[in-house]
């Protein structure tokens, strides 16, 4: 058992192997445990608490491939104190990690069905492990489609993955940006518009949605308009988080704690809370 599972409040030391820039404000950290025996296993959609000594910690989803043996990978957008400090960490540097935590995407439960992944902005990071898992078990699913929206072409993440996925015949990949300069030859428009252009069997489709809350709300509207059942729509919710194990109440969301009951919720579990100003 990993040290962090033995005591979920105690960060274990991890060494940074690589700090790769994705966009002007997003970077990906690859880390490995300093002590042997600390696991790098996780399920798609789970997150870790990344701790920078003297600064604090932040919940960050694991963005790597759970079907392969590789360093733990986190894709992070610079927001405030902790993420700025994480951005500065150089290879060889050490940070503390607790986790993995949280309810994963229902990729196993989706077997036999069509799967739609709808990602907005940094929301592609928690969905990427789900995509890797689906593709590693491609024959177990019906149609698979990814709809990915970003602010501008310069903000698109994982370009080499996108290129590779687009080249496959068994996968539909649609990318759209909110605005672009004239040299961009791809689609411009909100990601929700892409959903109505997809072909899937609404009665047998599972949708996994991750992005800013308002984008998820509009995406759900579009999915429902296309007759996907509420019980087959899953969202990954974000709230400020501290303990990550349901002790502190920091991430309480109505009757739920995002850290232990989520971050992935079935839409009908959180439907009444979405879009509320205060919960």
């Amino acid at each position, binding site marked *: 058992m990993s040290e962090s599972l033995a005591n979920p409040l105690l960060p274990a030391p991890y060494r940074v192997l690589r700090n790769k820039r994705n966009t002007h404000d997003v970077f990906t950290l690859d880390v490995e445990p300093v002590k042997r025996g600390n696991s790098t296993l996780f399920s798609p959609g789970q997150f870790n608490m990344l701790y920078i000594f003297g600064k604090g910690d932040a919940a960050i989803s694991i963005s790597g491939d759970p079907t392969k043996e590789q360093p733990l990978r986190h894709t992070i957008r610079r927001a405030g104190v902790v993420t700025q400090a994480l951005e500065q960490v150089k290879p060889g540097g050490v940070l503390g990690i607790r986790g993995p935590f949280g309810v994963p995407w229902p990729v196993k439960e989706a077997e036999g069905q069509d799967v739609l992944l709808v990602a907005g902005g940094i929301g592609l990071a928690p969905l990427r492990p789900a995509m890797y898992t689906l593709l590693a078990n491609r024959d177990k699913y019906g149609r698979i489609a990814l709809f990915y929206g970003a602010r501008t072409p310069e903000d698109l993440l994982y370009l080499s993955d996108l290129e590779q996925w687009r080249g496959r015949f068994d996968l539909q990949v649609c990318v759209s940006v909110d605005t672009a300069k*004239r040299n961009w030859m791809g689609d411009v428009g909100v990601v929700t518009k892409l959903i109505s252009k997809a072909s899937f069997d609404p009665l047998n489709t599972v949708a996994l949605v991750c992005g800013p809350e308002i984008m998820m709300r509009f995406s759900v509207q579009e999915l429902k308009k296309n007759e996907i059942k509420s019980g087959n729509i899953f969202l990954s919710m974000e709230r400020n988080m501290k303990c990550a194990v349901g002790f502190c109440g920091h991430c309480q969301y109505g009757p739920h704690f995002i850290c232990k009951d989520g971050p992935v919720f079935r839409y009908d579990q959180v439907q009444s809370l979405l879009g509320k100003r205060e919960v």
Partner: protein
Amino acid sequence: MESLEKILVQHPFLKNLEQKYVQLIVGCASNVRFDSGTFIYREGEDANYFYILRTGKVALEIHDSGRETITIETLGEGDVLGWAWLVPPYRRHADAHALELTRAIALDGKCLRDKCRDDHNLGYELMMRIVPLITHQLQATQLQLMDVYGVKK
């Protein structure tokens, strides 16, 4: 004419429209193509046509002197282009730029307005198809304005 009618009834915009109305619309329709790189219309021009896009890709662009041209939306197969034919003073609000070879059915705006005036049921049918597009566009603009992917302040 028959093939225009066939193309029109298959387009999502006119899905389930009664044949008699499709036939009325065909009277205002013509088949058009735009080569990649050409402008279908420019901002400020009279909005004489409404386009039912069949294939290709069109960018709606806005430019402001001294700034780079910005694409605000791209449209393609299954979409329609330019509803300014419906709203006085019938002027274009953006440039429409074909990014690929684009095939469309052009509907003459004045002809359509006249037919809608003569037959309010046709006018109602078209309105019921155009208003959701405008609503969609408004929602999309709200999301774009909110800069939802930007860092929360």
